[in-house]
């Protein structure tokens, strides 16, 4: 008999979105969007007549999860019965005494891997699913190291862990590390995983290592690869299908303002970005304004942001432009202006010598402010 599994991971329900949106409205919408994504995954499971839904960890953020979210999950899981919901807690939702996994009386169709070591649950007709749960936010144990299935047979793995072949960003620790070889050696036919926020199926043809990625992007560094996985066991082998269910998109880019005489040009330029994609998804953008603006261009970031409010869910702007002054020429000047520029350049050199980047940024900004003030020009608010 075939067995169907819908696999998701890294929902991060109730995650704070401070880096994405400045207003709580956008952040709340983003969090609601994560719940919607989970609902869509459960709907797909129902339509596809899946036997089980597996969740590869980081379902929610333990530090921020609200009672309301716990109730939401309880209802959703309960409504999914008799379809089984199997959870392998991750580093953001570890199984601890105080976690909702422990203190909530979950419906009987819900199974949570409570132990920090691999345990089996029967799926169907001798097919077993092995899994483990993180018991803390810093679970670095390599569970698959030296592990072998006690009896050779049909078995899949559900785990929140790090494929050692991936080079992670500085903020990603190697939680519960493993390798493809260890999965093979252990005797698993499939590894349904979580922890990596973009889809990753390896090998591509008949995947063994399956990360679905987070269903929705959680940051500007997560532009692509958000899906749920539809895994089907034919009785002899697994087939995997990834399905993009995201309704949000994050994009970042740079806009050179050197050629614009007024901020309308800048606004139009940003408005024209990712136009096609935006027609189907709600878009958050992060734009670095670069170049040397002309003297007539006033870069009022608040005004630009307001003008784009109907085009994007959120626009994060960063003024990375070069001040509109010829500093090299000014420092030759025998006036106070020249003396000021020389002093500031000395300060800047001192800060750079000391490796004090923050001080260097302050000095650069102060140089710009001083020259603007000498020209009696407006100094924009931060």
């Amino acid at each position: 008999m075939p067995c169907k599994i819908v696999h998701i991971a890294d929902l991060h329900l109730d995650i704070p979105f401070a880096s994405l949106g400045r207003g709580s409205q956008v952040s709340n919408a983003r969090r609601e969007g994560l719940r919607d994504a989970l609902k869509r995954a459960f709907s797909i499971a129902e339509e596809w007549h899946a036997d089980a839904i597996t969740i590869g960890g980081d379902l929610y953020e333990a530090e921020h999860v609200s009672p309301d979210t716990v109730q939401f999950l309880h209802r959703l899981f309960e409504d999914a019965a008799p379809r089984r919901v199997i959870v392998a807690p991750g580093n953001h939702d570890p199984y601890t005494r105080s976690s909702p996994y422990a203190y909530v009386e979950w419906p009987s169709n819900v199974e949570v891997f409570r132990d920090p070591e691999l345990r089996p649950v029967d799926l169907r007709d001798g097919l077993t699913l092995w899994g483990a749960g993180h018991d803390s936010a810093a679970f670095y144990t390599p569970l698959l190291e030296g592990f072998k299935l006690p009896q050779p047979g049909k078995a899949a793995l559900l785990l929140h862990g790090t494929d050692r072949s991936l080079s992670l960003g500085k903020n990603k620790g190697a939680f519960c590390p493993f390798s493809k070889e260890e999965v093979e050696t252990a005797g698993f036919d499939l590894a349904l995983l979580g922890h990596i926020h973009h889809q990753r199926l390896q090998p591509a043809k008949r995947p063994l290592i399956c990360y679905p990625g987070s269903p929705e992007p959680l940051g500007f560094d997560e532009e692509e690869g958000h899906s749920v996985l539809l895994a089907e066991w034919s009785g002899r082998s697994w087939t995997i299908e990834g399905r993009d269910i995201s309704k949000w998109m994050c994009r970042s880019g740079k806009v050179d303002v050197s050629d614009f005489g007024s901020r309308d040009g800048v606004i139009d330029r940003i408005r024209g970005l990712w136009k096609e994609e935006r027609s189907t998804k709600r878009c958050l953008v992060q734009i670095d304004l670069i170049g040397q603006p002309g003297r007539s261009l006033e870069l009022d970031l608040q005004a630009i942001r307001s003008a784009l409010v109907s085009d994007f869910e959120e626009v994060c702007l960063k003024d990375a432009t070069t001040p509109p002054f010829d500093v090299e020429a000014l420092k030759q000047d025998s006036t106070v202006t020249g003396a000021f520029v020389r002093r500031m350049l000395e300060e800047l050199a001192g800060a750079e010598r000391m490796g004090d980047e923050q001080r260097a940024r302050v000095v650069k900004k102060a140089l710009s402010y001083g020259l603007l003030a000498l020209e009696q020009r407006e100094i924009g608010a931060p």
Partner: protein
Amino acid sequence: MKLTSIHIDGFGCLLDATFELAPGLNVFFGDNESGKSTLQQAIWAFLYGFYKGDRKLARDTEVLNRYRPWSGKAFGGNIVYTLDSGKAYKVARDFGRDELRTSVSEVDTGRDVTKQFQRGKLGRVDFAQRQFGVSEEVFINTCFVRQADLRRLADAAQEISETVINLSGTGSQDRSVKKALERLDETHREQVGTARARTKPQQAVQDKLAGLRRELEEVQAQRDALQIDYERRTVLLKRRQDAAQRIAHLKYLLAAGQRDRLATRIERLDGLHLRKDELRTQIEGLKELAAFPLSERESMSRLYQEWMNAQRDTAKVGRAAEAAGPERAALTQQRLRLREEIQLLDAARNVPLGHEPAIRALDERRRRALSDVEGARAALESTQAALSTMEPVRERASSGAVLLRVGPQALHDLGIGWNSVTRDLEVATEELGGAERAWRTQPLALEAFQELHNRLGTFSYETLATLKGRKAEIDSKTEASKAKAMSPMRWVLAGVALVALLGGMALLLLAFIANSPTALVAGSVAVGLGLVAGVIALSRVLRTQSKPNADRNALPTLRAEVVALGFETLDELEASYQVYLQARPLYDQLTRAETMMRDRRENLAKIVSAGREMLELAPGTPLALSDVQAAEREAIDLTERLEDLRRVERERDQDDSQLQEAQEALSQVEAKLRVTLVLCGLGEGDLGDEVDRFYGLCEERRRLERVEADRRTLDATSAKYETVDEEHERERVAEEAARSRLEAELRRLGFSGETAEQAFREFESCCDRAETLHQLQQDSDALAREIDGIVIGHSPDQLQMEQSSASLAAQEMLTAEPTLASLTSDETPEELQRKLGSAIKEDGETSAELASIVERISLVSAGSRCLAEVEEEIQSAEETSAALSFHGEALLLAREQLAEAADEHYRDFLPRLNAIVGDGLSVVTDKKYTEVQIDHADLQVLLPVPDLAMPVSAEVLSRGAQEQVYLLLRLGLAELMSGGGERLPLVLDDPLVNWDASRFKNALELLAERAERTQVLVFTKDRATVDWFKSKYSAKGDHGLHMLSAY
């Protein structure tokens, strides 16, 4: 900026005139009323207009009307100028209209750019202010020099210096450092703010952050509370589940128990009936003992026990009497020995031991008092010996009575004062010597100086300068008159007259000789011409000589003023004044030193007089500081020795007093001891011996008491042995009596065996059987009651039915939950029932608490924001705060660095201006003056004068020198001003008119040098300037000569 051309339609005397200006030096030459000042005024008016505001002030209107064209031509014209950037503009003014129309246009495009500038009424357009960076006031006071106004700078000094500083600092009046600093301050104030400005962004963000953090804590607390509630809810749910299970168990146990209990009752009832039949058979077998007096059993047992006890006691006492024989003999020996000892000690029996502590205490006090007396006596002897060695001190004290009365401190103070006055006197002497030596370095005798001082004490350098100025002016005018009188023209005229006269006379003579009418006429004409020329020459000479000279009286007046001061000539006055000024400080120093010397001597005399008075010396008696110091030492020594003597006397008196007190105390103690011993019956011998005897008697008394106590103990032991024999006999009699009573009672009841023991055993056997019968009867009654209790009004059938019913109920529960079958309990039905009630109650409480928690969870969940939302807002606020801090830090740094850069720049301003003016003055005056000091506040110029230590104001210089200084000051200001902004042209109206030839030429060279960098317009009526220009610039180039006389 350079002026390119000026076209005048009509302006004063100038009509339809065009001037093309060279970029360097432009000299406008013309006589009086040739239009020099008019052209200069036109330049001013074209650049800045006539009116300063939108109202027509009478003063400005008067100026405007003064330059209204004489011929009725159009009043106005245009001026073209080129900025340093190369951009040229043309300004056209029409002063003829009421609104005084002004237009500004670009020269290269012809585009009218008037609207780019701020415009007002009366043709006011601020192009000059904007493009040149200087106000009209500053322009007129720096670049625009009119001969009459050369010295007027003080009124606008502040604005000028600020403008020049700004222009030299930032290159633009608009780019003012002050305004920039204000802008940075304002931006910081408005966009960041301080902790005190609660409405400003930074503080507002901080307040918001504080509020959010509080909210975060509350949300955290609510979350923790919710988690506790959730955990509690799970516990309660589990508890409710357990309670339901427990209730089911109890109900089953109750039902099963009921079933089992009924079955047991039925089975028990059957057993009881069988037992009842058995009892009935046994009772029948013992019924002959039904009347046995079982009640006597207790009294008989008691009598038997009494007999047994008496037997045991008799045997025990008999054994003790037998064992006491040897001990009794030894006891008798000891009693005899003690009696003898008591007889020996009997004499001490009446010693009163109660007095012993008092006598011992008194004896101890007596011993201490004896010791005190000995000590006091030794101390007194020692003190008296010391006193006898100090007798000579008394004699010294009487001879030094004066010193002791004055005291060492007063003498010490006198010595200090004397020392101080002596030192002051030495200092004054040194100063006087120094002043005298200094005085001798100058040539004047003291009397000669005092005579000079009388004449010149109120005289000042300014008065001398005034007199010298007047003298120079008089000399100058006199020289001019002489020169004029000796003018070559006059000599030529006189020569011409003489030649004409002589020639005419010669012609007349020839005509007369030759009788030639032509020669006669020619001769007459020549004579006439000669006469006319002679008359003219004569009249000129005579006019020169006879011309009333207003200055002629000036010299005598000046001389009279000099003579009034006691000098013949001004030079003598000046020389004497210089000598006086040099000697004056030395004289003052000498006078001060003498005065000080006098004061110090008087002070010394006063202190010597005070010393004599203090030491009671006759006036005039010699007294030196060493005498006072010796007296002070003697007074100190005497005072100290006298003090020692008095101290030892006080010690002797104290020792004497202590000896008397010790002796008195000893007497009192001995009297008390004697009385106490007498009370104890002792004799009146030596007190020490009597006390020792008393102590011996006390010891004997105590020994007697111990021996008597031992004797009493032996007596008691002996009495005990006698009592044992008596007791043995008593016990034997009691035993016989007890046996007799027992036998009598047994006989009364019908038991009479061979011995009392045998009869009593028979009695006991009958008693046992009678009691068995009684027990069987009681058991039978209890069985009957038990049967009644089991049946409880039910018939056996009824009991059977109840049992079937209970069994069915238990079976039903078992069918529903088969695991109940394994349940067992030792508890009673009542206990089970109580537990069931308790479980039901507990279940109710659990349900109520659960409902309460669910409601609370619901309420709390609905009432607060989610943690992530609050944290997002906090992070956002923290980012805003950090951005504001960064912004504020950058603004403050910009302000600080800009202010320091400006300070640095401004510090250089005055030195640079001083240098420019000083260098120019050095060139112009051929290095007579090489440096100046300019006051920043009022632009007042001070010059160091070689003869004086102090710099003097330029105001005390001659008019020509003053003009030179202030012209150079303007050139310096304009130079500095052009360092940062536009290089404005210098417009100078006959600036060199009062200058001597040398300085005149130097000044022109200076202007020529300046014209290499800046356009210079010089208006002059002096031909020498033209000559200089022509010799300097032979070829036409960047400089131009404009002859105004042509117009």
